[in-house]
């Protein structure tokens, strides 16, 4: 076997959990650190990329990276305990080890977006990948124009990241808009689909860039609304979710037309996927 195939792309690295934070019921953030010093020093990522996290004896899951790429030695992942692997991961804490492969995929165009207004649209529990781009921009606040975060949930109790939303509200020139499909007592946001929030925005925001993550139907509906309001299709980006097992474009589970979501995505310019997103079961 020649040296060119090493490191073996399927083989995870050992990562240690250095901190754990509870975000909401069943949702937690791990701060991870690769054990191998050379690997740790070489590790780099972009906001919107993902890692494959492996739980001993159970399996691997793709989870997006939510921390800042300028501190690549510490890698944050927000995880919702929803399946066999993530429910097992939920039982781990500081000092425990897991497997990590990555980073994989194409992230958010955060550099291309410099100097522009940013409209971040997020839906439900799918907002974690967008968080990385929001945090990235807020930590370089002067490099971006106005930032609007439009977040929709089904019910008020689905709102996670409460503290983060509060801190984003407090950031300069940053607008946070919330909506719930069904309101409840004490809900102070809007009622309705996330597109109702677009009416709250300064129309000049539609000359900026949009980054979205959430259910596909929500992203599609929002993107079409943005196009109607004059946003250019090349300024709209979405992060897609698919079953990713190898993360290398080898296993085929995440195929979407000509693309492998694991390597050509998960972030796509909307124009690249608009046609197929309309086709049910594709």
């Amino acid at each position, binding site marked *: *076997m020649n040296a060119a195939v090493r490191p073996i792309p399927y083989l995870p690295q050992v990562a240690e959990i250095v901190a754990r934070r509870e975000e909401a019921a069943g949702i937690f953030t791990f701060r991870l650190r690769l054990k191998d010093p050379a690997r740790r020093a070489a590790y780099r990522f972009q906001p919107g990329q993902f890692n494959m996290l492996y739980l001993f004896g159970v399996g691997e899951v793709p989870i997006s990276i939510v921390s800042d790429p300028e501190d690549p030695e510490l890698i944050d992942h927000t995880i919702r305990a929803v399946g066999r692997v993530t429910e097992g991961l939920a039982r781990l804490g500081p000092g425990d080890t897991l*497997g990590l492969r990555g980073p994989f995929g194409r992230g958010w165009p955060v550099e291309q977006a410099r100097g522009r207004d940013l409209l971040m649209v997020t839906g439900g529990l799918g907002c974690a990948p967008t968080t990385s781009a929001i945090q990235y921009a807020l930590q370089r606040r002067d490099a971006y124009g106005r930032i609007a975060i439009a977040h929709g949930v089904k019910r008020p109790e689905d709102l996670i990241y409460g503290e983060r939303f509060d801190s984003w509200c407090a950031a300069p020139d940053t607008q946070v808009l919330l909506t719930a499909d069904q309101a409840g007592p004490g809900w102070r946001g809007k009622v309705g689909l996330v597109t109702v929030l677009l009416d709250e925005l300064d129309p000049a925001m539609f000359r900026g860039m949009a980054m979205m993550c959430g259910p596909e139907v929500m992203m599609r509906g929002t993107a079409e609304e943005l196009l109607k309001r004059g946003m250019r299709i090349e300024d709209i980006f979405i992060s897609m979710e698919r079953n990713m097992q190898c993360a290398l474009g080898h296993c085929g*589970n995440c195929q979407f037309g000509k693309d492998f979501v694991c390597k050509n995505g998960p972030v796509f310019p909307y124009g690249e996927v608009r046609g197929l997103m309309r086709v049910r079961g594709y």
Partner: protein
Amino acid sequence: MAQAALLDRTAFDFLIQTLITQGYRVLGPQARTGAIVWDEIGSADELPRGLRSEQQPGHYRLVETGSARLFDYVHGPESLKRLLFAPEESLWTVDRDGEIRFNETLPAARPTAVIGARACDIAGMLVQDRTFLAGPWSPFTDPYYAARREHLFIVAVNCTMTAPTCFCASMDTGPRTRTGFDLALTELDDGFLVETGSPAGEAIAARLPLRPASPAETQAADAAIDAAARAQVRSLDQSGIVELLFGNLEHPRWDDVASRCLSCANCVMVCPTCFCHREHDAAALDGQSSRRVRQWDACFTLEHGSVHGGPLRPQIRQRYRQWLTHKVASWIEQFGVSGCVGCGRCITWCPTGIDLTEEVAAIRAQPGLQA
């Protein structure tokens, strides 16, 4: 490529013995449970003689002809895929002793010579190379595939027969092998025309009792291959195929084919280019170690692509559409080449005889229809 030479029929065993003495494990065609498959052989006597394969949509039978020929069948359900991309294998293992530790499980690839690969098999392998070897089409090399690929010696056989399900001529992948082999044989009445395609092939050929082929022999070989191409009754018109299929994703023909498709995935299993697989953990009973295993999978299974336990393509029409549009259309955008090599195995081995060339032609005949 060196000048063609001839190996007498009676000297065929020299080839096998030479390969064995040069350290190769030799896989030859074997008739097993009514079909041609590859298995280890020790001499030419073990090769099946005088067999022809009768193939039709949903039909495969071996028939004895009494001829002395070794390669009159076209191909069986297997392609080179099984020899390079294992149907099931461990990717790595992991132990737990306080913290976890990962271990490589690269296969100890043994030099293996395979006799009787057809042009479509080699074309299929070259397509899979684009998936599994790093290059312009893939950023990552699969080390398991690469190890076996490096150690595979291919003795190709040019087809001088064709099955009614074959359409390699229209896909420009056969019946003559043009590249990707070490040795290529064309069977004549008295012997085998031998061409070399690599330094390893030349090294083996140099040890064989070859004589220069006469012009008549070379012509006879060419004529037989050309006749096989002309005898093909199926074809796939690839013109504008990406636009054709992606412009007809709601065509009623998808419902029609779904009413015949059992979603059994036979077409995927016999396809030389399909690469989809799934991964799972096989944990030891003592809980101290585990193996990461990959296994061939198909876009026809409900689990394929499922997100959060929900199938992405619950209807058969969606799964067949995914398979066909990928195979013959988006594959071209993805890997710069069609995912179909025209071997026709998916037609022969489909229990209900679904014929992809017919499905594409039906959409081409009436584009723009909406279900």
